[in-house]
């Protein structure tokens, strides 16, 4: 199982802050997870569309699309940050 966290605008549009997911075994990295979630359609297809500025983290470290996802990981998707 993998925990997927959604922050800020994504949390609002997708209607959840986090979820536990059993991922298909062939799903290996952040890009693949994003594409898989997009298949849910509606706001998922829209918010996670290619070209949308979505950032990701794996186990609370900034991650690029090719970052590998393992069982037990926490993956987060969020918009570009606006603190300070």
């Amino acid at each position, binding site marked *: 199982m993998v925990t997927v966290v959604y922050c800020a*605008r994504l949390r609002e549009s997708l209607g959840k802050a986090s979820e536990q997911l059993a991922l298909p075994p062939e799903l290996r990295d952040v890009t693949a997870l994003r594409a898989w979630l997009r298949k849910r359609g509606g706001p998922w297809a829209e918010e996670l569309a290619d070209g949308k500025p979505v950032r990701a*983290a794996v186990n*609370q470290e*900034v991650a690029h699309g090719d970052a590998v996802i393992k069982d037990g990981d926490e993956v987060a998707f969020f*918009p*570009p*940050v*606006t*603190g300070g």
Partner: protein
Amino acid sequence: MPVRIQSEDFDAGREIAALRQGDARIGAIASFIGVVRDANDGDRVAELTLEHYPGMTEKSITEIVDQAKARWNVFEALVIHRVGQLKPLDQIVLVAVTGAHRGDAFAACEFIMDYLKTRAPFWKKESTPLGSRWVEARASDDIAAERWRLKG
């Protein structure tokens, strides 16, 4: 704790006094305070809500502070960032850096702030007369952070 995320306000004078207490090596303290403005992108802002990603926030700011300490000759750094509901005039963030001399303290303080703005997982939502909206990231913040690659 050198990195604190909290909803309560902070007293910069008290925080800086605690940071430098008993340390006679210190000859310079540089600090920055970010404050909520009453307007953004041409609209009045009545309220700001700050959200963060607990765990990653502390981790990413600690990394930024460690980078600053490795790069400049400074002693200690403190970062306090508020979350939750804030209003114009409220303080948002405090960065304070101690060092022997001002040059390194100034540079490290500005670096920490520029990196925090582009790397620490905080998001602002503002309420304006047009409704509430998530604040968009600014290209100028990326440029401010990027210039540290060229320097030093």
